[in-house]
């Protein structure tokens, strides 16, 4: 089969690889009908997250048709079923899964010993996302093996298109969780840093969850236009001070809720000198993450507010102002998304026509164009916001 394979920093190729095979009774093989390039794939593209190996198949947003199931799937999944595959692999039985904390499932990371050493305690296995999270081959491929498939799936009805449901596997619940963990009140202002795909979903989720005012921060005009269409007031940080404008829009008090949909690779610009220092330190391996957004959120957030962090951080971030954080009594909520905690509700909202996540798709191409699309997406060329691949 064909698959997008990581060969090194910025080196993705559409390779011919062997087909995946059932290894365990609870496995299933999915014929991928649609998959997507996620913003967090770019951290791997840049080799900022450790433990990728040449030959690893990329991709953790995919859906398709079940073509083979192991004997232990016990009828929960049958050949021909149409499923979205969540990026977090879950057993559905461990203590964390039973609590709904699916992204920290205790059983599915097959490299648990390494992850225990690095993280203190292992987190769930993830598709196509380094050997720290199990080294499972990803879904930017014609076929993917889904471990623990009896639990790791979201069945979707034929009445909805791939484009409408594909993002249930990652960016939609990720944006939703980011907003939900803000505990939004009807009088709240929610500020969202980053208008990439997760930021766009977070903006719409905050609107649906009843925020009085949603403010989006970015610098790319097309992304800001999409944020505005979703109901956000926009701030272009290339043209105005984020802190001053946020304070203006909130009567000088700052937003109650702040969402970091950027993560470890915040934009480097001379108008924000800390970003230059962070980039230099990251290059010299003195720091793994560039936490400018985190610093800005802590500074501008209203005392007693909540910081929600769906953006991916990989390791160590310097100069995080703990004094401001502590004295202002801010709450931080973060984590990889507990996808299956949210998907029943979100699928229902899509079916009801409350939201259609396909709005974010700007490019649909064949799998063989994937390597080029990584570049287009990373460089934000051709007004690219979200790429869907059709294997």
């Amino acid at each position, binding site marked *: 089969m064909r698959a997008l394979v990581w060969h090194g920093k910025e080196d993705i190729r559409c*390779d011919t690889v062997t087909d995946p095979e059932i290894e365990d009774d609870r496995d299933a093989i999915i014929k991928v009908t649609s998959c997507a390039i996620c913003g967090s794939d770019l951290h791997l593209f840049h080799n900022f997250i450790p433990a990728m*190996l040449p*030959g690893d198949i990329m991709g953790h947003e995919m859906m398709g048709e079940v073509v083979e199931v192991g004997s232990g799937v016990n009828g929960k999944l049958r050949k021909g079923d149409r499923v979205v595959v969540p990026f977090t692999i879950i057993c559905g039985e461990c203590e964390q899964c039973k609590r709904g904390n699916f992204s920290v499932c205790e059983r599915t990371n097959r490299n648990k010993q390494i992850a225990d050493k690095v993280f203190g305690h292992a987190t769930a296995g993830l598709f196509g996302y380094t050997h720290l999270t199990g080294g499972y081959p990803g879904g930017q491929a014609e076929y993917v093996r889904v471990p623990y498939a009896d639990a790791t799936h979201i069945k979707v009805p034929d009445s909805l298109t791939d484009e409408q449901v594909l993002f249930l596997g990652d960016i939609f619940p990720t944006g939703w969780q980011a907003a939900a963990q803000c505990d939004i009140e009807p009088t709240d202002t929610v500020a969202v840093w980053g208008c990439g795909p997760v930021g766009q979903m977070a903006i719409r989720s905050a609107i649906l969850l009843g925020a009085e005012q949603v403010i989006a921060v970015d610098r790319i005009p097309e992304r800001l236009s999409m944020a505005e269409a*979703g109901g956000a007031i926009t701030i272009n940080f290339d043209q105005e001070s984020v802190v001053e404008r946020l304070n203006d829009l909130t009567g000088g008090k700052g937003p109650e809720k702040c969402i970091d949909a950027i993560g470890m690779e915040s934009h*480097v610009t001379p108008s924000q000198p800390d970003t230059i220092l962070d980039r230099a330190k990251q290059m010299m391996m003195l720091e793994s993450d560039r936490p400018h957004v985190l610093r800005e959120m802590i500074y501008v957030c209203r005392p007693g507010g909540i910081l929600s962090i769906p953006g991916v951080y990989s390791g160590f971030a310097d100069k995080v102002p703990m004094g401001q954080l502590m004295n202002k009594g801010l709450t931080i909520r973060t984590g990889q998304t507990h996808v299956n905690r949210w998907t029943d509700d979100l699928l229902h909202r899509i079916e009801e026509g409350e939201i259609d996540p396909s709005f974010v798709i700007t490019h649909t191409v064949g799998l063989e164009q994937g390597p080029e699309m990584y570049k287009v997406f990373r460089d934000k060329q051709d*007004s690219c916001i979200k790429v869907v691949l059709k294997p």
Partner: protein
Amino acid sequence: MNVTYISNLVRSEGDPKVLRSGPSSLGTADQLAKALGWFSLALGAAEIVAPRRFTRALGMEGSEGLVRAYGFREVAAGLMTLSPDKTTGLWSRVGGDALDIVTLLSGLRHDNPKRANVACALSMVLGVTLLDFVGAKATAARHTRSKGQRRLYHDRSGFPKGLQAARQARRKLPTQSRSPSLAPSSAA
């Protein structure tokens, strides 16, 4: 056998393994930047570790400190050239090349017995400068954001029933969709 195939050893039996590689996302300009980045690191390391070899060969004894400083500059430029900010790295190399040229020109004086070596080094630096310049222009062109069409997305709300309806859609989160602090502890 390259690393891609060796890494198949750590994969489980049912995991796909690479049989044949396709074209890379790295373009010619990126490959050139990568080569120049590694060259920069190697040259910089040599200048830091053995500055006297350079000064002796060029008849510029006494300038070891300067060579070592240039070595650190080369390493910094190399790291940047190998990073996603390769265009900035390559332009910094062009700037460094200019410094190298000015420094070498001062060694072309008639009383320098190693004048021929300096001329040879100068021609090499000029060649590398040309490569750096071409690389910087090519990577800038390849990775500029202005490639392709400019579109705005004011018509993409994502709310089929409209923004107003979405603002009024707030309803209680279902039990399983509450934030972690409110999640029921059904495992207990």
